[in-house]
């Protein structure tokens, strides 16, 4: 676990202090913390993107589909140098670039404006296809969705199509904090597997386990990882 970082950059231990500088939005607090470790592992170990390559066409794309509770996302972006940590305290102010749902037009490093559940996966399919059409084979596309977000039927359209065409640059992490009103019969991974995806389940708090899982090869198929965390409000 990277808890320290050189050159004045921030490490994992800095995330909660960064997170705590943001106030308000109590409704989304549990959701915000559910994603913290997944986001950290992605930005610390997986995604080939940095503040200096945030506009590089060859960067990996991370799409926060579940735009709710973005404080963890902002904390990780601040820790990784995408945004000035002093901006965090101003979250959701009228003139802030940091809203309770992120806006890519306001904040560098944010790939999509999200908040309406079920939009990110379809966008990610398009981004992956667009990169392929442009001859860019290096970038991977990662999407974070919530288990309750998968209630939205638009996700099924994307899951079915991406599986059918074997879109193997597409990666989805489902952060499962059991917040869906109705649990998926047979488990969330099965929903992707039946559509032809490679799937895995992992502890959404275990950094090394996530690193190992996220780097698993999945030739010819998109990859869905269900990262389980504590039940919401538990």
């Amino acid at each position: 676990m990277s808890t320290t970082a050189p050159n004045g950059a921030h490490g994992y231990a800095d995330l909660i202090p960064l997170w705590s500088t943001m106030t308000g939005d109590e409704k989304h607090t549990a959701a915000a913390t559910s994603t913290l470790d997944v986001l950290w592992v992605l930005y610390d170990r997986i995604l080939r993107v940095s503040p200096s390559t945030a506009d590089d066409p060859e960067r990996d794309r991370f799409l926060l589909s579940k735009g709710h509770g973005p404080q963890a996302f902002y904390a990780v972006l601040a820790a990784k140098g995408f945004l000035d940590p002093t901006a965090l305290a101003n979250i959701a102010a009228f003139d802030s670039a940091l809203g309770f749902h992120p806006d890519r037009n306001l904040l560098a490093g944010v790939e999509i404006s999200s908040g309406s559940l079920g939009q990110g996966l379809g966008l990610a399919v398009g981004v992956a296809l667009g990169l392929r059409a442009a001859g860019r084979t290096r970038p991977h596309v990662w999407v974070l969705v919530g288990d309750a977000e998968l209630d939205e039927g638009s996700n099924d359209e994307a899951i079915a199509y991406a599986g059918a065409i074997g879109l193997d640059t597409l990666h989805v992490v489902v952060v499962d904090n059991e917040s869906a009103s109705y649990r998926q019969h047979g488990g969330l991974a099965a929903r992707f597997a039946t559509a032809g995806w490679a799937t895995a389940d992992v502890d959404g708090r275990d950094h090394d386990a996530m690193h190992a899982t996220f780097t698993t090869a999945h030739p010819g198929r998109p990859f869905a990882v269900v990262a389980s965390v504590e039940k919401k409000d538990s």
Partner: protein
Amino acid sequence: MRTRFIDATTRILDEDPRTALVLADISVDQFAPAFRAHPDRVFNVGIREQLMVGVAGGLALAGLRPIVNTIASFAVERPFEQLKISVAHQGSGIVLVSHGASYDYSSSGRTHQAPGDVALIGTLPDWAVYVPGHPDEAEALLRHAVADGDSRAYVRLSEQANAHARALVPGRFDTVRTGRAGVVLAVGPMLDAVLEATADLDVTVLYATTVRPFDADTLVAAVGGARPNVVLVEPYLAGTSAAQVAAALEDTPHRLLGLGVANADIRRYGTVDDHVRRHGLDADSLRTRITAYLAPTNPH
């Protein structure tokens, strides 16, 4: 117009490597040559219209210029929030092309008819809306939209068309003729019926193939040269552009008659002509209503 759209888009895909096409099982057979020529840029997502627009939004984020096509009901109404969020709110642009219009699928009933499409798109900021009245105009407006940077455009195709194409300037109304008793603004396929209806009336006839943005300047100038009686004749919901007329003429006392498709589920099948007559958009009905509206017994 649909056939022309397919032919023109097939050529555009050949000409411009930045373009892409996203379909949802509609028009797939007709685009077979495009699928063969550009398998990396031509996509059929199946019967999944939310994904159709979402994929287009993602392609735009990746730097492409997506063209999207299906029947108007499924191009605008079903995936409306994707148009709002996955495209517009991202700051991205696509060229959304629909066919079927208000009742081209006359015998298919309400499910395949979208008289509210332009009104709905009009609630979103910064979408250009093009309503060609002839296949040549459809191609010209399509090519203009595709070439117009990363703008957001809606191109509304119909099998109803005028007999002859007119030279058009995107964004501008075309002054077909001038008169003194009022100004009739005919949108897209309504022009021939309007010209027939007003043949012996002393009115200015403007022709619109771009309705958003709304060419207020041309309307204001036309109203300045005639009595301020304005008649809108739109091939979609009656009065869809009434707010635009009101804003254009905010300093000009005027009257407005909005003619178009009634906001009603009429539960009828039949032919396109049946529907045209039912909504009073045939030349005889238009003539009766416009003549009564302009009658000198009216105030003003």
